[in-house]
């Protein structure tokens, strides 16, 4: 997990472009992008993004590493995959955004640390690593209390009425979280996956 993308020496550094083409899965297809705007136009969250996928790709092609990895576009993707199925050039848009988000975390960019999406993802990961299942209550609690105890209580109270409504209609179970059998096996699988990722990352130029 030590290999980083090249540190830019100027705002427009094509070294970053080349690195993305070669090291991000599907990154090479970005060279085929014709800037038609179908990805950003199809995106349900496009209006909440600073750049949107199309402009992000143009920025990558211009070598704007800092601007790309600080962008909230990487974090506001909800993985609806409209862009992926509609892209006329078969660019795996959403997958590339996820890879760029991972890169932003690995390289310690500030928005990656403060992004609400990333905090939520941490809760999601912790839940399935611990129980082998995702439990909405645990994910929510993990997410609420990341900014401290007081902030957590405040967020809990804010969602109080929604939570009670969910309990009423039976959408929020009150029992203990379900665990899968043989959690040791899951741990081994996750460790193997981590090893593969480390190997893959180390192989990056």
């Amino acid at each position: 997990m030590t290999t980083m993308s090249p540190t830019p020496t100027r705002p427009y550094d094509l070294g970053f472009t080349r690195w993305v083409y070669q090291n991000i899965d599907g990154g090479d297809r970005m060279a085929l992008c014709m800037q038609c705007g179908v990805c950003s136009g199809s995106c349900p969250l496009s209006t909440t993004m600073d750049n949107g996928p199309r402009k992000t790709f143009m920025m990558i092609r211009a070598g704007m590493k800092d601007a790309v990895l600080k962008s909230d576009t990487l974090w506001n993707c909800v993985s609806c995959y409209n862009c992926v199925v509609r892209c006329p050039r078969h660019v795996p848009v959403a997958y590339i955004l996820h890879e760029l988000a991972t890169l932003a975390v690995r390289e310690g960019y500030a928005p990656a640390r403060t992004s609400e999406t990333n905090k939520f993802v941490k809760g999601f990961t912790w839940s399935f690593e611990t129980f082998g299942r995702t439990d909405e209550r645990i994910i929510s609690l993990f997410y609420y209390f990341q900014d401290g105890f007081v902030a957590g209580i405040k967020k809990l109270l804010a969602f109080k009425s929604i939570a009670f409504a969910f309990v009423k209609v039976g959408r929020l179970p009150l029992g203990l979280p379900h665990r899968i059998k043989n959690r040791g096996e899951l741990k081994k699988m996750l460790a193997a996956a981590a090893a593969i990722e480390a190997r893959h990352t180390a192989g990056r130029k």
Partner: protein
Amino acid sequence: MAQLNRYFPKLCHPTCGLEINFQRIRRNPKVKVFTLASVAAVTGERGDYTVTVRQAPRYVKANCTACGDCARATEMKVQNQFDYNLGKVSAAYLPHEMAFPMRYVIAPQVLGTPEAERIKAACKYDAVDLDEKESTFDLHVGAIVWATGWQPYDAARISPYRYAYLKDVITNVEMERLAAPNGPTQGKIVRPSDGVAPKKVALIQCAGSRDYNHLEYCSRICCLASMKHAAYMREQSAEATVDIYYIDIRAHDKLEAFYRKVVNDPHVRLIKSKPAEIKIGPDGGPVVCGENTITREIYAEPYDLVVLATGMQPAGVEGVSGAPVDAYGFIVPEDETQGIFSAGVASGPLDVSMSVQSATAAALKAIQAIR
């Protein structure tokens, strides 16, 4: 070609070109024409090809005078394929006013009904033969030129554009029929939903073309065809506005002058964007949605009429054994010394003048191959 209203860039009518070429064919005793025919198989080699031809029945003999008594004799109507099913036509019909040969056709749906007998009885030349059957015959030839032409890409397959659900989303070929004086509306461009002349029109480029999900290639003609459609709209209405959504406008060399002329009109707006989808608006009309790639603005613009510039697909070669097709279905002979050639859109997307050039070239090559 006869289905087009006018050609770009000079906006001249296709009838004069057709007239000249039909006369040439008619006067040349060495040219034989088989209509309603399709090629089933091709075998053999240069100088000795056998082409198996399947000819569908016309149910009308050669002594038809195109008087039209049969059409008047029946009440039954069938979809008018010449107008891309925009209107209906009598079950005994002349395909179009420039039909070659100038003979009526009887729709197969009418057979076995009392209408068929009524049609037969109406013909005072006894030209109706309801017992005609499909025939298959072989032609022995030295060289072959494929000039099977094209068909528009099926717009219903571009599901985000809701062509199948929105009446006021039409294709560029349907626009040609609406604008044509011999079309379903006698040349008045109106909305299919309510028959009112549209005030705000969107033309969407690359509907299916340059898209790995549909046609992977650029169809070449659609940009200029849409310029022509903008010109039709502006000719018919002084207040109509036309928005052209494009990825990039491909107006090659001499065609650029026509493009400049059209876009200099203040009522014609170019918007650099491939629309992501067409939604159904609150009034049931089309709403074009996407991202303007110059301003990065997300738009949702309602229109009276949306025209999809659908691309060209090769026609009539699917399933023919022995046809040298490329990955897209165009006829591209790998080895031109073999005596098989292609002309016009059968060889790739071309406009009318380029098709004529390629046809002349193919004819010369074919003559040389069997000399």
